[in-house]
């Protein structure tokens, strides 16, 4: 077995510091007041405005009509992230199920068509997508936020590969045991895919949580603003001599990081299993 040496630890510690430093600085800076930050720049020491700033970010009503709080933005982000992840999983699992288990003409073609959409990012089709949503009167709705982004080539590909690795005999045994396509999917395939689902869930949740461009386009109503928009909103108040609330921006960034971190921590053992497990 490989014995860890002193030098290995040095590399790992340096790596950790590199990754953590910006976050720590963001946090410590967020505990100072805005004018202080404006004068002195980033700070490593803890300030004394922690409670006040975070309380304000979370609960104070901001925006033009004063109905948006940090909490409501976080809720929007959560809805977007969860809806995004769950929807993508359901859709891509069903697509992969059809491609792998049903013999129909052009199944391979269908798969490759889905697969090639990987090459087209959202930005390429953003105008047509917007137009479709607009004509369906889905602007400023959660449906409009989530629905156009649900089709996932990555997810379909992951699940296709996973389903292909499930032994054929399992399907045959289930068929003899009297399980139809729906039953097989729910009773056998779904429980087997648990760790795979967890892995895809993490990836998709973080991806959805971090969406920026699409929510900006889709929502003009402040009650649909997500955290990502909120951060930008705070920095957009440079009017006259007013100093932007740097502290609040930092605080919100730190808060915005928490849910994805939480999800990764909770699901991480499943995540690794899902991507590496071979024993079925």
């Amino acid at each position: 077995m490989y014995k860890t040496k002193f030098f290995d630890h040095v590399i790992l510690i340096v790596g950790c510091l590199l990754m953590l430093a910006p976050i720590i600085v963001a946090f410590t800076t967020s505990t100072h007041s805005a004018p202080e930050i404006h004068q002195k720049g980033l700070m490593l020491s803890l300030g004394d405005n922690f409670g006040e700033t975070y309380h304000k970010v979370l609960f104070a009503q901001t925006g033009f009509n004063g109905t948006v709080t940090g909490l409501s933005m976080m809720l929007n982000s959560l809805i977007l992230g969860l809806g995004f992840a769950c929807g993508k999983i359901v859709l891509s699992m069903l697509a992969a199920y059809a491609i792998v288990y049903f013999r129909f003409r052009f199944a391979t073609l269908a798969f490759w068509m889905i697969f090639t959409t990987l090459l087209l990012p959202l930005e390429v089709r953003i105008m047509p997508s917007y137009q479709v949503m607009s004509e369906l009167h889905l602007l400023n709705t959660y449906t409009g936020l989530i629905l156009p982004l649900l089709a996932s080539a990555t997810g379909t590909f992951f699940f296709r590969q996973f389903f292909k690795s499930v032994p054929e005999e399992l399907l045959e045994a289930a068929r003899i045991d009297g399980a139809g396509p729906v039953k097989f999917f729910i009773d056998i395939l779904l429980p087997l895919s648990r760790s795979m689902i967890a892995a895809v869930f993490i990836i998709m949740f973080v991806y959805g949580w971090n969406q920026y461009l699409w929510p900006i386009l889709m929502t003009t109503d402040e009650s649909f603003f997500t955290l990502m928009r909120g951060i930008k909103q705070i920095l957009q108040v440079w009017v006259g001599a007013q100093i932007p609330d740097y502290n609040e921006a930092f605080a919100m960034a730190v808060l915005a990081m928490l849910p994805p971190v939480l999800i990764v921590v909770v699901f991480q053992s499943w995540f690794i299993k899902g991507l590496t497990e071979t024993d079925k």
Partner: protein
Amino acid sequence: MASIDINQVSKLYDGGVKAVNAVDIQIADGEFIVLVGPSGCGKSTLLRMVAGLESISEGVVRIGDRVVNTVEPADRDIAMVFQNYALYPHMTVRQNMAYGLKNRKTPKAEIDARVDEAARMLELQPYLDRRPRALSGGQRQRVAMGRAIVRKPAAFLFDEPLSNLDAKLRVSMRVEIRKLQRRLGTTSIYVTHDQLEAMTLADRLVVLNGGRIEQIGTPLEVYHTPASTFVASFIGSPAMNLITGHIDGNRLAIWPVGFTFDDEAAYRGEVTVGLRAEDLTVAAPGQPYLPFRVDYVEELGAVRLVHGFVGDQALCASLPVATALSGEMRLGVDPQKFHFFDREGRRLALPFAKARMTFGAEAATVSA
């Protein structure tokens, strides 16, 4: 419980490959049939067609009185045991066994009773709440059998169920399967490439080669009267010696040695002579013999297999361990135990084999 009738069944794959070719098997109620043959002979395909996992290209399969060609596997009233067990990894042993019954809307109490009964039969009671992952290969195979038993199907289909087990376990599971089948009296079709498994399990053997039936018969029939050179070389270990000879009138010339029949043979020309290793002995002094050049020896403990040549044709003799070995040996043969096959490899008609044969006095002494 039911009989199974496989009538002129063929399997055609795209590109015109015939994996199974016009196979006819009538299986009686409660019979244990073993399909045996080398890889690619179509035995698994045939089994899967009976199971409904492969479509039937031509012919008819009947289970009981019902034609099942287009019936779903679940509705054919069969249960199947797979080579890799195919247990549901996320279910406990109990759930695995109960799944098929649950899908058939069997009452809960009945499911429990049947699972418990099967578990008792297979000595699986301590493992009922474990996952397959936590079981050994032999236990997993027993669970797979339990899953088949609880269904109380008309027929069991076994697809090389013992191939993944180690040699010792295979022998003991073989016995268990046989006993269980006797006890339940369920019609069974068992696929294997292992001729020993086939011999020990079968009521009747079906030897398949290239999608065709070579021979159907009880293990002893197949062993003692193989219908073709293929069956002769496939069934039995070591494989039957197959030697080229020549028949002319009432004389048979094989190796450098000749034999004389009492009667004129109804066949002339080249012939394949089959001879089991255990039918060769050491010739008693003064008796006619075959001059045998020893090449190498395999010790099996109970007997030793002596490989060598008579003339330029390889031969293997199974001799008692006590036999003294030397580079040149004199082997005795009993012409009664010869098997004859024609140029196409088919067994030659019995009257010929029954004819009493004697060593031609001068022929037996002809040497290489």
